[in-house]
């Protein structure tokens, strides 16, 4: 059994379909993960001087609650394997719903479970990236802005945000690539992404070399596209 190029051409349509699904899950995961991550990341420092001054009155307990919730979310996700998270959402969560409500036939599509898992998983790591970058912004800039009488919200949007965002790009690139590769783990809940497609073809023709080589190259192409897009964004931003 030598290297058969025809094996690759024959399996290409199925593998490309898998790659397409991998890409879709990744993009949804990255977009949702960014939203989740920005909220949780800011949530973890709500009411601290990293975002201006400490709140008073009713806002104080509210920000404490937000910090606590965001922290619990991040630590829970970081503290458990993504496979367990996917399995929990796909297999265990419907049972939990059945147990506490009367809904009998609640179930989650495998693809939906995969997208939700990757969103929440990436979100937790992105939250830490967001928190780290925001904390790293010189506090004097906030003070300068506040002494002009500008609102905290405006300062977060126009000063902290842009400066922190630029610092986030390298670690975000890391996380986006990790998330893309993590989609291969959804093989365990039967999502037909790239790794799953490769596995299925392999099981029928036993051409491990050709199939896994092609699968690896496809992943490499997708991660390269992600990395290069981030480099582009980085170049476009003002250097300071």
């Amino acid at each position, binding site marked *: 059994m030598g290297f058969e190029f025809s094996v690759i051409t024959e399996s290409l349509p199925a593998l490309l379909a898998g790659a397409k699904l991998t890409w879709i899950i990744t993009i949804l995961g990255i977009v949702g993960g960014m939203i989740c991550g920005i909220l949780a990341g800011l949530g973890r420092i709500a009411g601290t001087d990293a975002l201006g001054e400490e709140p008073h009155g009713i806002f104080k307990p509210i920000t404490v609650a937000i910090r606590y919730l965001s922290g619990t979310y991040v630590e829970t996700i970081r503290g458990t394997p993504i496979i367990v998270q996917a399995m929990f959402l796909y297999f265990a969560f419907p049972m939990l719903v059945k147990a506490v409500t009367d809904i009998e036939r609640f179930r989650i599509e495998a693809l939906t479970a995969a997208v939700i898992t990757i969103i929440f998983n990436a979100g937790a790591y992105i939250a830490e990236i967001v928190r780290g970058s925001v904390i790293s912004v010189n506090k004097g800039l906030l003070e300068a802005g506040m002494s002009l009488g*500008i609102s905290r919200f405006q300062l977060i949007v126009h000063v902290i945000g842009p400066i922190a965002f630029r610092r986030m790009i390298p670690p975000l690139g890391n996380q986006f690539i990790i998330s893309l590769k993590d989609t291969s783990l959804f093989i365990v809940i039967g999502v037909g992404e790239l790794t799953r497609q490769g596995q299925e073809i392999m099981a029928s023709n036993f051409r491990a070399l050709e199939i896994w080589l092609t699968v690896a190259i496809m992943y490499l192409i997708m991660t390269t596209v992600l990395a290069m897009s981030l480099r582009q964004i980085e170049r476009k931003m003002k250097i300071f």
Partner: protein
Amino acid sequence: MSNIIELKNVCKSFGETEVLHNIDLSIQEGEVVVVIGPSGSGKSTLIRCINCLELISSGELIVDTVRIPEERGRTRQIRLEVGMVFQQFNLFPHMTALENVAFGPCKARKMNKSKATDIARNLLSKVGLAEFENKLPGQLSGGQQQRVAIARALAVSPKVLLFDEPTSALDPEMIGEVLDVMKNIAKDHGMTMVVVTHEMGFAAQVGDRLIFMDDGRIVEEGKPSEVMKNPQSERLKDFLGHVKHH
């Protein structure tokens, strides 16, 4: 003349340590007050309390009719009227000089962009930086950055300007250009100013009152030339000796 700033029996603690002890201080509209004192004596904390970057722990602070702590919700009102210039400039690094100066009028005074830009251009030329309007802070010298920072503080037309050692981070040859700008503001605008500095020449020339702080207290105050000529306490004599030798 009426008082624009009043501190009554103000104390400020960080955790267990009290760093300002029972400060009483009234500043009149248009007055230039220079604050001196050794490092750690509470000069920065004092002026940061005035624009509520630090909240006073006890006592009362009245700035332009707003009372702290009762009207804590109105600190933004205070900050609109009380600008601040920092030792480290703190310019927004991603904005050009012009954008830095126009940002305040735009966001704090809700001015439209073209009007804010006009004001900013005007102020930049006033501090002698008209041809630098498109430079980022990182492309400017320390003295130029500090002049932009002063223009930025002026742009929201405050009634009071606070300066926290505005020339301490500058190379010696740039100190003069910043002090000149400050002198002009005191003269032309009749601006109320509270200036923490060790530039005794500036204090003598521009200051209406000199305050010497030590260990969180106001130890001596009076007309700058007189306080400098006739220091009463040992600590001030000692301090003036150190400053002069610089």
